[in-house]
């Protein structure tokens, strides 16, 4: 299954290896992993909320769009929700293609869309308290790159 939304931790290395083995005729695999930043001196915990009925269909639509735009042999998206600790892997995207340009562009595209269009909300908990992560203007700007 190419899209997985889960509370459980996962092993990005094991996922990368399994993913790289699935498709034949693949020469290039790009992966992105997002981590809870382990800021020295201010150990951070993250709470991620999501909209279960919407999350998977929204991400599957992004994957479908990516497959329309680039020659992809396979795509993997894993995104966690719930309670995460510093250093934990939040999410992962992997793309497989014959050629590196397609794999890079598709992973970059999927990350931009996951960042601002997949229904997840992050709350950071530090020594100073808890705060919802605010969306950034640059994340909307990043989406402009992919307009037809």
């Amino acid at each position, binding site marked *: 299954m190419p899209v997985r939304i889960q509370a459980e931790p996962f092993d990005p290395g094991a996922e990368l290896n399994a993913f790289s083995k699935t498709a034949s005729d693949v020469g290039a695999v790009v992966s992105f992993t*997002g981590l809870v930043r382990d800021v020295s001196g201010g150990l951070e915990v993250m709470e991620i*909320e*999501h*909209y279960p*009925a*919407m999350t998977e*269909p*929204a991400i599957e639509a992004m994957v479908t769009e990516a497959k329309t735009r680039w020659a992809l042999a396979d795509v993997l998206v894993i*995104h966690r929700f719930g309670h995460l600790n510093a250093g934990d892997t*939040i*999410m992962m995207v992997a793309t497989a293609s014959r050629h590196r340009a397609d794999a890079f562009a598709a992973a970059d595209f999927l*990350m931009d869309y*996951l*960042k*601002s*269009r*997949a*229904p*997840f*909300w*992050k*709350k950071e908990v530090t020594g100073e308290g808890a705060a*919802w*992560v*605010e*969306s950034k203007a640059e994340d909307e700007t990043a989406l402009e790159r992919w307009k037809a």
Partner: protein
Amino acid sequence: MSLDVLYFAWVRERIGLPKEQLETQAATVMDLVEELRAREERYAAAFADISALKVALDQELSEFDAPLAGVREVAFFPPMTGG
């Protein structure tokens, strides 16, 4: 009409609940927002600045001027911060 209304992140926290069922005659999302604002202070606070909010109708991102006819589920939330 009967609607499921969902709230996420700080919208959920301000209103104090994740989900409720409402009976409404609101024609558009904006009509529904006005109805909610008029209801209680916590709703007025959550919907004070809708430029800071997004809305999904039946799990699809939509706009505040969209009609509600035929819609079963409305969700209000701040801009997403996934990835």
